[in-house]
């Protein structure tokens, strides 16, 4: 019986730099998103800054898409990247909610 082998598609030489930069920017933009969200919620930034947080999340998603497509990821990995992007979107909301509840319990 011939076992099915997973074969990776070659990455084009010109695409490596874009892959590395977009991979790095995933976390940089992701960090900006979480940071701005947290700063607005803790009143370190005004409310008008919040749309910029979501703008950075959209940029994060674009970088996920760019690196994934240039790497020729398979369907499963593409779904994994989507899960990571949604996880990043929900992360500060969930953490801030819990943080806020604990603060309220402690301070009142």
């Amino acid at each position, binding site marked *: 019986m011939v076992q099915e*082998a*997973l074969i*990776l*598609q*070659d*990455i084009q*030489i010109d695409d*490596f*730099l874009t*892959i*590395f930069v977009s*991979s*790095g920017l*995933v*976390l*940089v933009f*992701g*960090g900006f998103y*979480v*940071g701005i969200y*947290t*700063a607005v919620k*803790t*009143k*370190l930034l005004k409310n008008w800054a919040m749309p910029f947080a979501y703008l950075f999340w959209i940029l994060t998603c674009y970088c996920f898409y760019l690196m994934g497509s240039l*790497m*020729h*990821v398979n369907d*499963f*990995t593409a779904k*994994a*990247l989507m*899960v*990571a992007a949604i*996880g*990043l979107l929900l*992360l*500060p909301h969930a*953490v801030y909610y*819990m*943080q806020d509840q*604990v*603060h309220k*319990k*402690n301070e009142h």
Partner: protein
Amino acid sequence: MANNYLTSESKKLATWYFTFAAILFGAQLLFGLVAAIQFVVPGFLFEILDFSVARMVHINALVVWMVFAMMGSVYWLLPDETGIETVGIGLGKLLYWVFVAAITVVVLVYLFVQVGPADITTIWFINEGREYLEAPRWADIGIVIVVLGFIYNLYATGMKGNRSGIITVLMADMLAFAGIYLAGMGYTDNISMDQFWWWWVIHMWVEATWEVFVGSIAAYGLITMIGAHRKTVEMWLWIEVAMLFGSGILGIGHHYFWIGTPEYWWEIGALFSALEPLPLVAMFIHVLYDWGKMQGEQDAQGKEVSVISNKPAFTWFVLNAFGNFVGAGIWGFFHTFPQVNLYTHGTQFTSAHGHLAFFGAYATILIGMFYLAVQGKNGIKVMYTTKKSIWATCMIFGGVLGMTAALTMAGYVQVLVSRAQMGATWAGYFDGQAGVWFAQGMDWRLIMGVITFVGFIVLMIDLLSIGKAAHHER
């Protein structure tokens, strides 16, 4: 040291651990410099201290100084967290000397014996040949005994005294940390199986149990240095533990791409590696959030003073949050998917990630703990920076960032030339290394390594002298 304000035996023992850790830290950097010189001048110390030996001491000293500093950190915080003296402190002191003696003998054997006859006696008495964990079998057993004693002290103290959230996390984490070491002690002549278990130790340490340890120490630091609310900090800690273990354990898949394990590890590795940066983002925000919150409360009361009680230590804690995010997060995410890891695996890209991740995630926070110990030992209420501490921080952090940039450049050349263009062939390997960008990358790595080493010397001078400075509040 002039005055010693430490009344707790546990904290005194912690300073012993920190002292030996600092010595090994110096050894790590020194042998790293030797290896870096050998990339530039290949004949340097040829057949006296070959690259293989210098590299072995460099990376093993790295692991061992961090283990020493971690054990010291636990002995330091135990009395504060539990409210009692550490149980079994006499045993702890005895085991400290056993550990120091064992490590000294192992290093001397590495340096003066170097290689064995490649039979079972080599495994027992010289080295086991597993990167990062090359201690020979007799030392392995010794380390297990020492760590069992350490775990006993931690558990006995935690169960007798007040068991805070931080202590509870540490009790679970240190047990896992110790237990996982056993996975790297077996012997098999199947290289795939050997690598499979060896990665349990390395990966489960640095991407699971050590990260949780860092979370615990960061929590302790935020409470002691800026007065962060314990319940808030401990809630963060539990979230981090869940996220770190949730993504980190199966993230081991990214080490199983090319060692002969089944191909389903590609999917597992890709999925969990994609999730691994999330807790690092959370940890970064955690430190900044608590700092901003506490400073905001202070400012609201009209007190225009900093909430930080130990500026040099807190600087290193903030650098930890940043370095962990950048070194482990960004530089790890670069090459964590199998599609791109096929090209980057084993190049200087890996080395760039290793340097910034080990430094950013672990060295920084452990240096911060050194400063906390200096503060406690000298009875200082609020400790300020000195010129030397600022220089040391800038030189070490700048030096490691510079090394990372240089290694990344060299790795990029290897990816393009050795892998993508020449298909990972023998000739491709040498063509990649002969490129001018690679050679310049190695030159810059050496220059930045020297800056890091000088920064380390300034750091040591500062640690020995900062306690006597007059500008602190006592």
